[in-house]
């Protein structure tokens, strides 16, 4: 029986509360914004680590982004991943989900045979939740989106997962290989393993691949490979509210508030 070959897709995203719109250029001002591993991707990694604890196997981290994300991938290896691959090339810039999923699929092709690709349900910056399903289509692989848990059935070489529905959930059985997107918060990511620190930051294999190295067709990347165009970005106008402050003792405030509320009951 083969050990589980797992790939965890990870995105390094700006902290949402620190991003502003440049009022003149109408572009996102990401300068001086700190980054973080997209939180649901940490849940996907934790799921992979617990499957590895239980069944053995190995975990490759796959990410796409500029070289500054490398230390984040090393953190993932400190947590227990075995290897990391970063797709980094100006040719990827401007990719929407169509082009991004193509590039990730080409990266996975280069990584080699896999049983499971695990992703966070969505990224906190793009929030499209469309990457896992698109990736599964490029890979011609089975998919389970919005998974709440996952069990590996080694004797059948299948997986079983609960996935979210609107107002409920369902239990799904899937063949392997499969792409699974993991709901944020389904598990508690483990602490960093300091015994792995030296290895993760000095020895662990971290490969950086450009578009040519993954054999990607340049026409399918970046703006030319994207189906969508961002026409403009703006900061959301806040709806003007009355901002009327109520004063007095708690009892007086409660009385005033009740008077204000009655027409809305």
């Amino acid at each position, binding site marked *: 029986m083969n050990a589980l070959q797992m790939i965890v897709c990870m995105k390094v995203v700006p902290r*949402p*509360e620190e991003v502003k719109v440049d009022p003149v250029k109408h572009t996102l001002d990401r300068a001086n914004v700190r980054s973080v591993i997209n939180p649901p991707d940490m849940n996907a990694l934790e799921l992979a680590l617990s499957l590895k604890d239980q069944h053995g196997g190995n975990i490759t981290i796959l990410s796409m982004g500029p070289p500054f994300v490398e230390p984040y991938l090393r953190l993932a290896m400190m947590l227990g991943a075995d290897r990391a691959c970063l797709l980094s090339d100006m040719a990827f810039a401007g990719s929407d989900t169509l082009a991004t999923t193509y590039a990730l699929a080409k990266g996975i092709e280069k990584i080699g045979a896999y049983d499971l690709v695990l992703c966070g349900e969505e990224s906190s910056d793009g929030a499209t939740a469309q990457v896992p399903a698109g990736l599964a289509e490029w890979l011609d692989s089975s*998919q389970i989106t919005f998974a709440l848990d996952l069990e590996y059935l080694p004797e059948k070489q299948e997986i079983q997962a609960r996935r979210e529905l609107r107002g409920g959930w369902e239990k799904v059985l899937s063949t392997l290989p499969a792409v699974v997107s993991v709901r944020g918060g389904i598990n508690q990511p483990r602490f960093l393993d300091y015994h792995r620190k030296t290895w993760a930051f000095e020895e662990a294999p971290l490969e950086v691949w450009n578009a040519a190295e993954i054999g990607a067709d340049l026409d399918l990347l970046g703006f030319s490979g994207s*189906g969508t165009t961002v026409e403009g970005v703006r900061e959301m106008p806040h709806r003007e509210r009355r901002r009327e402050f109520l004063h007095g003792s708690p009892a007086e405030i409660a009385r005033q508030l009740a008077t204000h509320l009655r027409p*809305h009951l």
Partner: protein
Amino acid sequence: MTSGICVYLEHESGKLESVSLELLGQARALADASGERLTGLILGANTAPLAAEAARYNLDEILCVEHPALEPYTTDASTQAAHRALMKYTPNILLLGATPNGRDLAGRLAVRLRTGLTADCTGLEIQSTDQGSILLCEVTGFGGGISATITCKTRRPQMATVRPGVFLPPQAGAPGPKTCSTRLEISIHPESLRTQVLERHFHLAGDLTRAKRLVIGGRGVQGEFELLEKLARALDAEIGATRVAVDHGWISKEAMIGQTGYVTRPRLAVACGVSGALQFMVGIQNAEVVVAINNDPEAPIFEQADLCITEDLFQILPSLIEEVTQP
């Protein structure tokens, strides 16, 4: 040449999903503004009753793909069926609800069609151009603080998913005898289906997108949701919560409001112990009246509330419950 607006009519337990009806209302307005035809697409095992329900919503055509493998929903069967229908009918625009299954299908289908998909839209408009009708999709990002307009100019269909609760559902009309209903036969090979649904569970949670009044608890509630429930009963309101309250396990995820939870449009939202992070505020920005009770006068929620109370909620709520329950 592609033409027409197609709405994917998702259904569950023999009923059309509310988000599908909301889409039909907005899609009718877009179709009228651009002169496009409006088609509903139903994939299922027994589509006739669903088509009859859909016919009450002023569609030009209903396209049904019927096969036993299409219920319950699985990615492989529905992607095959939708792809077949779309290759035959080539709509200019395809709209889906941003439900778990709507997103599961849309993400896969967009790549199979090699087209552009705008996910989780909070607004849709249409523009007539030399290249035909172009869909202008509004999306919010970064916790709702930023919005962008996204188009898909050169590939077809132009695909978008729309989050539940964004558009008002249209009034159902009389059954539409003029609505033409077309059935498309397909074959689905069992070996092409890689997943199998073993069991399904639904809980009877209220749909907060429809709530008229909401009492919402945040960090400041410190787990005392019983007090909020008392207020909710007194106001005939539903209970909502911020992500912090859900993450603390004080209340179920079904109550979560905001960017990753429900986007609501109540007449009244009473936010208790809620700081007012952008990710949360997007969920109540369409409320008619927002009341904020928070003992931190610096809380950002006071910038976006109609009635502001900078007091301890545990002091205010018991008196308020008493006041509103008095005859």
